[in-house]
């Protein structure tokens, strides 16, 4: 099990993704220009100028390291390891790091770098993945025909997100924004959305949010879409499970192990809170692909509804199969 959530004294890192022209660089500039009192290092994957005093901006050329064992969760970003490695040596001088990916970047190796590379894991913590979408052009990217085997990065960037900025809302009608938001929620039901113009957003909403902290798993109440009304012609969706009952912890461990073994490549993010038989505490878990972390959390409050809640975001997920398998983990 990979411990993904411990954050003692670690420097937080926010990863900003989004398609070219969505407003990522505008967001970075906005963050840097706001009076937040933080000394921020920015790692850019797209060449650009960020002329802000007191901020270190480093260009990186995306380089993906796949490992010999073929495991998708061991795929990391070599360029980030190099750059973050040198930043950490002088970490006293930075208290926040922003990573701006290219519009075509796969978010998985970026996120996994923070859990798989031991030196980075020891000193930094991935705080959140923030995705900026262009409200006017989103559907163009979402439904773009790709050759077989070629990923649709726009979809994946949304699927991995903890926070989504629906940007350029001034360029579209209210109805169009509502359609865009419906698309976004059907892909990723657990991310928080906010409408923005010129990427202007409350910084507390995107910085230091602790989206990978187990304690904050499902802090955002997922919008569990039960029917097919919102389903679009897309392979990446969210499957939410909400079930009452007591969970047999051994069975659920076996099932999650099986699920990740079988479908870990297709499951991008998952989060959940479980009501474990024989325990007065909530059990919380989360994962990125096959990287998985879970632990007992706070005690259930008096009168709190002890409902098991899980959300899986991924490709070709079978809601009925997942629900059925989960139900088999309940204590009869």
């Amino acid at each position, binding site marked *: 099990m990979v411990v993904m959530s411990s954050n003692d004294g670690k420097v937080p890192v926010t990863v900003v993704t989004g398609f070219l022209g969505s407003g990522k660089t505008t967001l970075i500039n906005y963050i840097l220009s706001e009076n937040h009192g933080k000394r921020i290092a920015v790692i850019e994957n797209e060449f650009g100028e960020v002329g802000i005093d007191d901020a270190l901006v480093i260009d990186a050329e995306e380089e993906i390291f796949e490992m*010999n064992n073929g495991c998708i969760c061991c795929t990391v970003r070599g360029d980030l390891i190099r750059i973050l490695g040198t930043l950490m040596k002088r970490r006293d001088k930075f208290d926040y790091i922003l990573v701006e990916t290219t519009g075509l970047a796969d978010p998985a190796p970026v996120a996994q770098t923070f859990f798989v590379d031991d030196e980075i894991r020891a000193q930094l913590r991935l705080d959140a993945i923030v995705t900026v979408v262009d409200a006017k052009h989103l559907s163009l990217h979402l439904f773009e025909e790709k050759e077989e085997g070629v990923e649709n990065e726009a979809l994946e960037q949304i699927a991995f997100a903890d926070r989504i900025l629906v940007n350029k809302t001034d360029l579209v009608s209210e109805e169009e924004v509502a359609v865009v938001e419906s698309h976004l929620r059907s892909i990723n039901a657990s991310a928080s959305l906010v409408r923005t113009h010129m990427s202007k957003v409350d910084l507390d909403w995107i910085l230091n949010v602790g989206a990978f902290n187990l304690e904050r798993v499902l802090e955002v109440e997922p919008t569990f879409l039960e029917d097919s009304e919102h389903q679009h012609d897309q392979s990446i969706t969210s499957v939410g499970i909400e079930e009452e009952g007591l969970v047999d912890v051994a069975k659920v461990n076996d099932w999650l192990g099986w699920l990740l073994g079988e479908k870990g490549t297709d499951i991008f993010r998952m989060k959940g809170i479980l009501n474990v038989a024989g325990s007065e505490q909530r059990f919380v878990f989360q994962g990125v692909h096959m990287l998985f972390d879970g632990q007992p959390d706070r005690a259930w409050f008096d009168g709190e509804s002890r409902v098991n809640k899980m959300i899986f975001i991924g490709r070709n997920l079978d809601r009925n199969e997942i629900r059925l398998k989960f139900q088999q983990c309940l204590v009869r």
Partner: protein
Amino acid sequence: MSGSLRSTVSVAEQVLTKLPDYVNDIDVSPDGRRVVACSVSGDMCIVEEDGSVRFLKAHEGDVVHAKWSSSGQFVASCGIDGALRIWDRGGSLVNESQHNGWATGLAWRADVDEVAAGIGRRAVRLLANRMNPVTHVELKTTIESLAWSNDGRHLFAGHYGGVSVFQGAPKPVKVFPWKGAPLTVTASPDGRWVVSGNQDASLHVWKFSSGSELQMTGFATKVLLVAWRRDSLRLANASMNEISEWDFSGKGPKGSKPIGMLGHSNRIVGLGYAPTHPDLLGSVAADGSACLWRPVKSGNSLVHTHGTQHVFSSMRWSPTELRMVCGTSTGDVVSISFNEGAGE
């Protein structure tokens, strides 16, 4: 000095000088009389035997490596500014080559004053006495580490996807392909073996003549430190706080178990066999400990542990005495001499 050390060891520790920030690399001149150290601050210093220190602004941004030539006449440095530079002992710039990308994997040839660095995806070679550098063909991925064969004929470049071998020509003469990310590459002194330490917590070994390969896996963390004993019969590597020594005699380590050595409580940042005592291995770690080992298959390999207040970041042995020089995370340049004690 004899090749053996009694179990009673006394240690003399001295801070030689201080750089402004984290010491990335450190080296001792072949005559043992001078030390060079470099920092993430862009500074480099040369410490003379009499304790006098010359500071240089060597690069814009981190100086990644600094090393003495085997003639002892020159120091080379490389930095994240993409520059490879050669300096004389007095700190005057002798030659330089500037490219796009980070420069890393600095390695001097043993037979002539020629140095190589990986700058982005290119291996660049620079002679002390000729202005024009030799620039090899661009590889598909960024070079992480370089090493020369002892005879100076081959230059090994470790990069994601394997190890490329260069001679004089711009293109590699040989490639040892492997789907993984080598972080450090070494050639055994006798030229038989090429070994890389890797991102996926493994060692990968190629026999130079045949290209046949084997892999050692299961280390706790990625492998950044690999050291050969002078006779090429042993190789040590460090991963997190543990050292392993492998037997490369005969047909090599295939199927064998390493000698494991645990003495540090935190990440090991420096590892090497002592040139004056080839059976002794030295290591330093971020917990401030410096250890001397004599690897044995059964029993305790630890000869001595010296605790300090430093957070070490790098280490090199003096070629002429049982003395380590170490860099620290706060910029200190520290000398640690081990002396044989009065008795058992």
